[in-house]
């Protein structure tokens, strides 16, 4: 649901760069989305098809790199993927704390015609 305004934001940022670089249009937008960011790539792609019409991103393709969240064990300091109902480290069975890994939500690069 909240991917609508977010998609507008993505298009706005990309258009900004097109103008800054004196290009004609955006050809590709490379996004990075952590699976714990709360943003859904499929929704962004769906809104993009509609919203990009008539903008400098009209013909652009969206490429999404997804990142799996990792917890960090307080005992052995290893990073691990959580299971559904626990935060326990599979190696030493101590608790894992959230890390920034998996919360990414940014535009890595855009490709323009130059």
């Amino acid at each position: 649901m909240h991917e609508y305004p977010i998609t507008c934001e993505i298009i706005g940022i990309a258009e900004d760069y097109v103008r800054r670089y004196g290009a004609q249009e955006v050809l590709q937008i490379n996004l990075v989305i952590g699976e714990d960011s709360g943003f859904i790539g499929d929704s962004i792609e769906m809104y993009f098809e509609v919203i990009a019409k008539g903008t400098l991103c009209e013909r652009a393709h969206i490429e999404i790199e997804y990142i799996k969240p990792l917890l960090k064990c307080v005992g052995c300091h290893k990073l691990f993927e959580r299971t559904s109902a626990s935060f326990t480290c599979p190696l030493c069975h101590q608790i894992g704390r959230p890390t920034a890994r998996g919360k990414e939500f940014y535009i890595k690069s855009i490709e323009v015609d130059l």
Partner: protein
Amino acid sequence: MADNKKIEIFTNILQRNDQIAELTQMQMTEQGLLSINVMGAPGAGKTSVILSLIKEMTEMKAYVIEGDIESDIDTKKLREQGIETIQINTHGACHLDAPTLAAALQDLRPLQEGVIFIENIGNLVCPAEFQIGEHIKMLVVTVTEGSDKPYKYPLAFEKADIIILNKIDLLPYVDFDENYFMAGVRGLNPEVLVAKVTAKQNMGIKEVAKWIENKTTLISQELYL
């Protein structure tokens, strides 16, 4: 055929939202207003907790901003108690964002020092993803929602500065496993204060009010800047 030029930009997509949020937070700090983003599922007791806190903190000026998808039922309830309240209707949006709050603050024009509660849209997911200009994120959850919520909605629990576990009066009637709940909370947020509350009977509210009053002192010392 034109050449493809790749521009590395590494741009945070929420940057515009976050900039406005920071600005709002600074303005609040300068005015001596502690802003509290109150989050939780529909019916968790956000409005009830806000009401009983304001009744408890008689020394302090309190403002409320009510976020709802539609309707102004809660706003009416608060105004009947003499509380200065502004309604935001998001008309479908599942969370408040920084520009929406900034606009509402223009209308409210809070003048006195004190505390401002911002009741976010009833939703355990989306509000946690957006900074709006708050100093503090308060999460209201209930024993009736089940003890697995930290595992299912980790972000809200991870980001909370204080967690209100509400509807303690209903404990005898539900199978809430407090140890399992607390293990999840501590895994995500080791230091956070978890206050057991029955908002309807003002139980546990004093402790929370004290905690808030202590934070407002920090604000007036501008430690949040």
